[in-house]
């Protein structure tokens, strides 16, 4: 570790929800700017563009318009990823557009985030889109929410306004079942309470936005979760010049949850064969124990035929093998889901053909009501039942994102057409 790297609090992935009107791009621009991530040449480039568009001040929102079409239309079309670092922690921001037709983008951005910032314009208060974003964040299992009440500069920095919106949100959140929520008043435009406190919100005594981010848990809390190790690749260097390697059989993968150590009793699925862990290796080096999110290689004491798509678990906590799943699905393709067709489901490293057995209901993301549905169109979210050709080793999504999530692939064009979360 280098001398200038004192502590490392890992990496936090978060999502910003809101539209340009809420000042989302300005907020991101402000975070990057105030943490000194934006460098002089980028700043001068956006200053030039701001001037060209006849804007008085430098428009920090221009930092996040990545594609030509976005710049031309002045809207965000796709998820963009931004990076900044404070010296103690690295951040990845998933920036998703806010309009309704882009539900799929928000679900995409949320799928890898551990925290979401929901932006509310202080002048407008809670909107339909605020409810939609919050509901989607909850649905995708984001454990921590920060509700940022922005544009306080246009609301006279009024504590009363802030408290009123906070009250409304809490009432709504109780209904949706969101637990860990923090609130903060902001002016992204002026930089109040983002990185610096500023002079205008002295009645607010809580942490700044960056201080909140610095202490938020870096990953979802898997401490008590079960060990799940989908096999990605099998390493068998039989023809190596080193005779010691002729019997080497390493199962390579990333730990989706839990931890594993040498000597643990494990079961390989789907065969159900049992063995014990002979070695845990990371980067070719033996380690005694490994945990969630590490990419490792496992060696077992017994020779068990294992290949990509299998899953290694602890023998004491074997998941169910299911051939029918109920799931919340977000449909992402232009073409609606065709009930008569067979799709491919990819779950961990395992694929299975799947047929839609039933659409239980659709979720109206604006009213949060369950409505009957016959079909699934782009950006629809619905609860459905699939029948599977191959068993999957699954856990409920809200318990385990890694083994509860799947994508749906259309084999005719190989596109990813949907995302699912097992109930």
């Amino acid at each position, binding site marked *: *570790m280098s001398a200038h790297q004192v502590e490392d609090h*890992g*990496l936090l992935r978060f999502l910003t929800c809101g539209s340009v009107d809420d000042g989302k791009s300005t907020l991101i621009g402000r975070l990057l700017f105030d943490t000194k991530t934006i460098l002089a040449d980028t700043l001068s480039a956006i200053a030039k563009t701001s001037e060209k568009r006849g804007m008085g001040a430098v428009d920090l929102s221009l930092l996040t318009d990545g594609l030509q079409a976005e710049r031309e239309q002045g809207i965000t079309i796709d998820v963009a990823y931004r990076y900044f670092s404070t010296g103690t922690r690295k951040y990845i921001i998933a920036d998703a557009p806010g309009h309704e037709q882009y539900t799929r983008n928000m679900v995409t951005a949320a799928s890898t985030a551990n925290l979401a910032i929901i932006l509310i314009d202080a002048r407008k208060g809670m909107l339909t889109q605020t409810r939609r974003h919050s509901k989607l964040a909850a649905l995708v299992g984001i454990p921590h929410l920060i509700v940022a009440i922005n544009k306080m500069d246009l609301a006279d920095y009024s504590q009363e306004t802030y408290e009123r919106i906070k009250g409304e949100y809490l009432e709504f959140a109780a209904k949706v079942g969101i637990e860990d929520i923090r609130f903060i008043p902001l002016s992204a435009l002026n930089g109040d309470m983002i990185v610096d406190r500023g002079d205008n919100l002295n009645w607010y005594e809580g942490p700044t936005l960056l201080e909140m981010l610095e202490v938020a848990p870096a990953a979802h809390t898997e*401490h008590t979760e079960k060990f799940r190790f989908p096999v990605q690749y099998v390493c068998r260097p039989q023809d190596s010049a080193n005779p010691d390697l002729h019997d080497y059989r390493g199962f390579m993968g*990333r730990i989706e949850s839990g931890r594993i150590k040498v000597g643990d009793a494990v079961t390989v699925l789907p065969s159900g064969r049992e063995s014990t862990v002979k070695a845990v290796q990371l*980067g070719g080096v033996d380690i005694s124990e490994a945990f969630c999110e590490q990419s490792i290689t496992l060696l077992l004491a017994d020779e068990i035929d294992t290949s990509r798509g299998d899953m290694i678990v602890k023998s004491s906590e074997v998941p169910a093998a299911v051939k029918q799943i109920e799931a919340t699905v977000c449909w992402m393709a232009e073409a609606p889901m065709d009930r008569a067709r067979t799709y491919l489901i990819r779950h961990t*490293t395992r694929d299975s053909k799947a047929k839609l057995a039933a659409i239980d209901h659709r979720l109206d993301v604006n009213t949060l009501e369950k409505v009957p549905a016959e079909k699934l169109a782009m950006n629809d979210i619905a609860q459905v039942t699939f029948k599977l050709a191959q068993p999957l080793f699954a856990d409920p999504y809200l318990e385990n*994102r890694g083994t509860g999530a799947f994508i749906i692939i259309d084999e005719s064009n190989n596109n990813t057409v949907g995302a699912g979360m097992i109930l």
Partner: protein
Amino acid sequence: MTQRSTLSHLDWLEAEAIHIMREVAGQCSNPVLLFSGGKDSICMLRLAEKAFRPGKFPFPLMHIDTGHNYKEVVAFRDKRAAELGERLIVRSVEDSMARGTVVLKHEGESRNKHQSVTLLEAIEEFGFDACIGGARRDEEKARAKERIFSFRDEFGQWDPKNQRPELWSLYNARSHKGENIRAFPISNWTEMDVWQYIEREGLELPSIYFAHKRPIVMRQGSIVPVNVPLVGGGVANPSKDGEEIIDLQVRFRTVGDISCTAPVESDADDVSKIVFETATTTITERGATRLDDQTSDASMEQRKKEGYF
């Protein structure tokens, strides 16, 4: 809040990159790893070692050589591949020029963007269904929106408005014959992460990444290295009459085709000094050193649409 073991940011990035490489190996039948001898691809080789040793890499290495690469980098490329005992394929833009598939507008035109043609020819020649590259999202705005597994059609084209949704760590590397996937394991790394990783892993780099004296001229405010000796003889970037040649202490932040990579003035002669400089710099990596990205706001996006990686 439950207490749990948390990976340091470098360990997390490393674990993600290894996972991505193994997904390519698991899902694709004939992948290749693009290796230029530059710092990002040097990290990629270390990640491939961590992903696949004690086995051999499940893919060969390939470099698309413009013929205008720094000879220190070319030598390093060959040495590194030999040390690893992995197969290195080199395909040359000059061969495409000889075939007539690359036509320069004029002799001095940068060959950088023409790499796309040679790359597509090599993909076809070997039937590669996936190319693993060291591109990072922090390098450039268009890259910030590209997927980790990026689908390219038969013409190698990227369609930014029609990308496959990419969720969780479930990657879709499926393609039909003739199409291919570009996979970017270090998408989520920044320039700083790369240097910190090089420092932590003690990775060797071509000498031109460190401060050294070299003849340069100033052209339109940029430092332009001149009279650079080429592997095949002759020089790249000959100085022009009347230009003042300065012997300047510089290093390269990014290394590519000589015609479009410029060095920065620097005294940093080891990795820890570079890490420090990177932390305190005021100019972006590509802004300082890529003469090709400054043409227009959208030039990287344009090149990617045409098959560039």
